[in-house]
């Protein structure tokens, strides 16, 4: 759910918005950043920012269509959680406490090994969610004049979709920072409840490999990647990630290929981006 800097609102992509507002949003953030660096932290927009119930309700209403697509992915997560031998309590705990789709799918793919590779799971989760740093940074102008606790509660509900909606709302002139909390909470409810349903229904599916279900993770990630595709600039970093991962999977034990491939691909991408 994660999401994804100005990058990959995964589920966002599954909205049937033909002209994605994200491009606009990215442009606006760039402008805000520029403003900030010129005028320090005193941004005029932040002086007018409020944090009200009606702002939260507006965010909640706007998030309802996205909640449907989040539910579809949450359902898939629940089914796969069952395949990974997570019981319903663990699956709900993960969805409720982590609330970050892509990293949860990645974690499940690491769950099979015995004993559980706890350190690898936590490190990989951190790496997959690093994009939140960027998203959180972009919220600064809107929350800087509000009590910090409001920001630190709101950011828990910051996923790719609620962040993108909120940026769109601010871009359109909205000034109520509770919009993020409201939209995020609706998505949270959708995510956790669809996890329960998926995990429960997953119990009726025995011997997953017989039905090709061992391929489900790969298929979900492949589909998420299609949503992240932004054009030719992806080719080199993704090719590097693939080659390094295949080589590492062949030569190294465990799941090191994920971190090595991900690090190599993203670094190459950053270097070629900066040119």
């Amino acid at each position, binding site marked *: 759910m994660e*999401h994804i*800097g100005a990058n*990959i609102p*995964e589920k966002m*992509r599954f*909205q*049937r918005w033909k002209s994605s507002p994200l491009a606009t949003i990215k442009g606006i953030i760039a402008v805000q*950043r520029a403003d900030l*660096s010129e005028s320090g932290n005193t941004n005029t927009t932040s002086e007018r920012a409020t944090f009200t119930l009606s702002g939260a309700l507006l965010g909640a209403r706007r998030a309802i269509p996205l909640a449907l*697509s989040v539910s*579809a992915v949450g359902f*898939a997560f629940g089914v796969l959680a069952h395949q990974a031998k997570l019981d319903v309590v*663990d699956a709900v*705990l*993960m969805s409720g*406490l*982590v*609330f970050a789709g*892509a990293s949860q799918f990645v974690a499940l793919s690491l769950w099979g090994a015995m*004993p559980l590779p706890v350190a690898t799971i936590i490190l990989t*989760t*951190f790496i*997959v*969610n*690093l*994009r*939140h*740093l*960027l998203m*959180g*940074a*972009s*919220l*600064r102008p809107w929350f800087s004049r509000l009590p910090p606790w409001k920001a*630190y509660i709101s*950011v828990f509900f910051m996923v790719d979709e609620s962040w993108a909606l909120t940026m769109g709302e601010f871009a359109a002139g909205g000034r109520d920072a509770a919009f993020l909390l409201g939209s995020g909470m609706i998505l949270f409810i959708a995510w956790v409840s669809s996890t329960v349903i998926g995990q429960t229904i997953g119990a009726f599916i025995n011997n997953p490999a017989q*039905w*090709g279900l061992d*391929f489900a993770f*790969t*298929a*979900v*990630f492949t*589909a998420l990647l*299609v*949503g992240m595709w932004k054009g030719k600039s992806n080719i080199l*970093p993704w090719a590097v*990630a*693939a080659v390094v*991962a295949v080589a590492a*999977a062949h030569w190294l034990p465990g799941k090191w290929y994920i971190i*090595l*491939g*991900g*690090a190599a*691909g*993203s670094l190459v*991408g*950053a270097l070629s*981006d900066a040119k």
Partner: protein
Amino acid sequence: MQNETLTLIAIMGMALVTYATRAGGFWLMSLVTPSPRVEAWLKQIPGAVLVAIIAPTVLASSLAETLAALATVLVAIRTKNVLIAMVVGVATVWVLRRV
């Protein structure tokens, strides 16, 4: 240690580091502004990590997985729906493993 305990530790750890990434960016912005190069790197991470996860299965297992991944891509492009793409991918691999 019991696996149930390890499971709880893993989930709590995931929750902790994930919240740290959510709050961290907001907090850091009060101290510094990230350089364009760091920003570019952060944006590249999720895609590269997902590619790394699927590459050994898609490229280095068998033809069934490679073709099923291709089918998944085509359906995802057409429908923009993860769930449908997943079902088609799984069905494709199921059929191809049988022929």
